[in-house]
């Protein structure tokens, strides 16, 4: 399929009130493209791999931007840029896991414009799908990434169901680790969804990466104070240190009592269609201290249940080694 390199003829709406954006989103349904910073939008449109009728630009809606204190933690508006998160004093103090994850997204240019909401709800990087092929995720009945000749070095080792695409978002893993709530609005009201349920795998909904339905807009993310100031570990492994997407990443939040881990959340990115919680690692870590010995004992659990494709076996030891490094202390 040819790459056209220029934007298609498309209607642009620039609402300044959320209600207007919501009624446009309702009117256009799945023909409406909700635009955050646009950093992953224009590639889709220029390639004609997605062909929405209208863009609904949220950047003019002041109420969707900024970091606010709530009764229990903080609320980050969906169009807050990644740069604003990286530089925010309170996030760096209490939720440095998120600042670190946001700091590893793409390049300086993209972090300066890219929004939290956009980073969380971006589509997968599977190149077969992004090329506009009629695969399962695009409504067809074939997966081009899971055949004997397929190039699937970057694809899933867990949670695949017909489609083997992975979640590319660096901030998504941090949100699941921090037990964030996603605030989602539509013309008919507001609902909030736990981060863990916001990201959906192919067995649940094969053409969507998130629980956002047509007509819905992610307006904010609420991070509870539960994990504020706790011990965090973030690491992203990619072929290139910048711009590139994670081969495997890990976001960890741990609460220590004395020397031992009382509670923890271990979340891997780049291994499944959703941020993947390592629940067996979490339960094995409980009561252990951070040490070389416990790291060696627990790390092998990280890849339990993983089923590699032709070219991504390397992700299994990567997952294990990232857990090992998080547990070393």
């Amino acid at each position, binding site marked *: 399929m040819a790459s056209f*390199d220029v*934007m*298609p*003829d*498309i*209607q*642009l709406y*620039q609402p300044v009130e959320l209600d207007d954006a919501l009624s446009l989103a309702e009117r256009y349904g799945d023909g409406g493209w909700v635009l955050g*910073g*646009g*950093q992953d939008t*224009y*590639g889709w449109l*220029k390639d004609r791999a997605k062909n929405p009728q209208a*863009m609904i*630009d949220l*950047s003019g809606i002041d109420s969707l931007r900024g970091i606010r204190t709530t009764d229990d933690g903080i609320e980050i508006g969906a169009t807050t840029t990644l*740069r604003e998160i990286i530089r925010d004093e309170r996030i760096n103090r209490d939720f440095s896991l998120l600042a670190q994850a946001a700091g590893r997204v*793409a*390049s*300086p*240019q*993209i972090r*300066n*414009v890219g929004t939290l909401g956009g980073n969380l709800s971006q589509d997968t990087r599977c190149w077969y799908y992004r090329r506009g092929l009629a695969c399962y995720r695009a409504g067809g009945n074939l997966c081009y990434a899971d055949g004997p000749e397929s190039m699937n070095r970057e694809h899933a080792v867990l949670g695949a169901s017909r489609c083997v695409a992975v979640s590319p978002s660096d901030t998504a893993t941090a949100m699941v680790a921090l037990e964030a709530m996603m605030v989602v609005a539509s013309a008919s009201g507001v609902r909030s969804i736990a981060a863990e349920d916001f990201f959906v795998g192919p067995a649940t909904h094969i053409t969507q990466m998130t629980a956002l339905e047509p007509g819905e807009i992610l307006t904010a993310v609420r991070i509870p104070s539960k994990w504020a100031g706790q011990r965090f570990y973030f690491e992203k492994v990619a072929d290139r*240190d*910048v*711009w590139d997407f994670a081969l495997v990443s890990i976001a960890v939040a741990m609460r220590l009592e004395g020397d031992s881990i009382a509670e923890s959340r271990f979340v891997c990115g780049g291994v499944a269609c959703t941020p993947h919680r390592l629940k067996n690692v979490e339960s094995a870590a409980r009561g252990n201290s951070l040490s070389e010995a416990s790291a060696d004992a627990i790390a092998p659990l990280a890849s339990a249940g993983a089923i590699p494709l032709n070219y991504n076996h390397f992700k299994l030891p990567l997952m294990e080694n990232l857990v090992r490094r998080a547990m070393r202390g």
Partner: protein
Amino acid sequence: MKGIAVSTTVNGDAVEYVCHGRETLLDVLRNHLGLTGAKEGCGTGDCGACSVTLDGELVCSCLVLGAEVEGRTVETIEGMADGDKLHPLQKRFLDGAALQCGICTPGFLIAAKALLDRNNNPSESEIRYALAGNLCRCTGYDKIVRAVSAAAGDMRRQQKAQARRRATR
């Protein structure tokens, strides 16, 4: 389809234009305003050849819509030199041969300026981190990093000299 009227500031000048909703800031700069310094390399944010600053922050102008810069401040490579007097970065890029074919150079200069405006004494890794969104296929980057580091020294000396002049006045 109706055009969108935009008033903005480009390189210190008040500018008005009418653009289509699908046009990027890069399209507007090059096709409507005749500012062809910013280049279209990839059109997807990989290469940084289209870098400009928007309210002082580095952005890829190919990934910002022309209609989104209403009321904001855009700085492009064309606004970098002061008349005939080159910016220390431009001078150091020339002196240090920090370019060969030159297509990435406007983007690198803008990205480097965005860094030095915030931090006038960056370490080598800070320079490399700040320039990570710009690709160069000729130089291998080393000459660019050295030129930015040297320009940072020039700018610090200039700032010191200015401070001395102010103090003795």
